[in-house]
């Protein structure tokens, strides 16, 4: 008999997760995985108001924690992958690393809004840490989320964008520009966590899918799309 897993996932997991879904459904022919992508903030608001999701995959660790604090989860919060922060540009030479933000040709720098977007928070932190933030503060434009930040840079309106490595590797971005991965020593990888939503028990398949996500079977896919384990 057919089973269904309903997943609420952060928008930037799109590529990797579609791949995993395909692989999982192939291995479990009786199960369909239904994934709703959205901003983590939107997704939790929905979960807290009874949205029919079994499993929540966030782009950071904060949102699952918030969900847990409200008592809407069961079981532990698990980290499924680490994301890396990169600088991306279509034309600017990024060979100077982080200091590229000071180049005179750079008129606009796109960063995700630190309220709610972990990559934005990380970008601001690293710029502050190396004393660059105040120099470039008036060049920053804020994206609603990491996708929009990428769109700012991708459309060429911002010379540099701080985005996730996973986006820099997305088929659309690939080859359209260059990226510089901020070393783990400068900016710690971003922990991306998931958690089962209360009420999933009605649908035992969800726990199995979570185990699958965390298992080694997915490692190759995660890495292909720019995540580390």
């Amino acid at each position, binding site marked *: 008999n057919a089973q269904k897993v309903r997943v609420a996932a952060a*928008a*930037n997991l*799109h*590529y990797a997760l579609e791949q995993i879904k395909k692989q999982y459904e192939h291995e479990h022919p009786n199960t369909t995985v*239904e994934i*709703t*992508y*959205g901003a983590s903030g*939107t997704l939790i*608001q*929905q979960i807290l*108001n*009874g*949205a*029919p*999701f079994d499993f929540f995959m966030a782009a950071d660790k904060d949102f699952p924690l918030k969900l847990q604090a409200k008592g809407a989860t069961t079981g532990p919060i698990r980290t499924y992958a680490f994301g890396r922060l990169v600088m991306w540009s279509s034309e600017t030479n990024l060979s100077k690393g982080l200091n590229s933000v000071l180049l005179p040709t750079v008129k606009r720098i796109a960063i995700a809004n630190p309220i709610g977007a972990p990559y934005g928070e990380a970008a601001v932190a690293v710029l502050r840490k190396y004393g660059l933030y105040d120099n470039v503060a008036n060049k920053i434009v804020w994206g609603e*989320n990491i*996708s*929009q930040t*990428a*769109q700012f840079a*991708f459309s060429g309106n911002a010379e540099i964008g701080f985005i996730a490595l996973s*986006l820099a590797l*997305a088929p*659309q*971005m690939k080859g359209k520009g260059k990226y510089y991965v901020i070393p783990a020593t400068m900016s710690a990888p971003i922990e991306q966590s998931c958690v089962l939503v209360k009420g999933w028990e009605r649908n035992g398949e969800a726990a199995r899918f979570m185990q699958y996500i965390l298992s080694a079977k997915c490692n190759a896919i995660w890495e292909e799309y720019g995540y580390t384990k």
Partner: protein
Amino acid sequence: MYSEFIETLFVTGKLAVATTILLFIIGLPVSYMLAFARFRLKILLEALISMSMVLPPTVMGYYLLVAFSPQNGFGKFLEHYFDLRLAFTFEGILIASVVFGLPFMIQPLQNGLMSLPESLREVSYTLGKSKTTTFFRVLLPNIKPSIITGIAMTFAHCIGEFGVVLMVGGDIPGVTRMASIAIYDEAQALNYTVANRYSLILFLISFVLLTIIFSVNKRHKV
């Protein structure tokens, strides 16, 4: 991939048609009242109807979601007495889109009714016709351009509506996922080739439908 998008088009069409019909039915008495009845606070009511445009759609959607939640008064009432949950159902987004489409239907209708010469109503009354008969046989047929505007605006707005429906509907494929949400998702994933193709399809279909709606106006113009 495509078949999924076709599915969203069906849901979108269903929502847009249902919303437009419901709003037309609701809009008739409300616009009549706003056009002809005299009561204090009428202006406030008029302003209130437009207020749904003022706040960000997702935030409005959130408020609606809270109202629908079985943990709160209204939602509890529905769950208890009707075993009904509105959030994340087609009925839920239908209600949301009706509420947020109000100004698009009511404003044009009210406007049309107000600009009719008073003597049309008066003469119909002296011919012994009730207010209802007068409304349907005399007033409405004479504000056809306003009706068309109301229907076109409501319909177009409903197709493009996005924030409220996304929040209240939860983007469930085949149930509450709209074409506009699917396009948004693809754009968010930077899948521009797909997003553009979807946009084009939605654009063309809407364009044809709106052209048909507007051409009704033209054909019947006096």
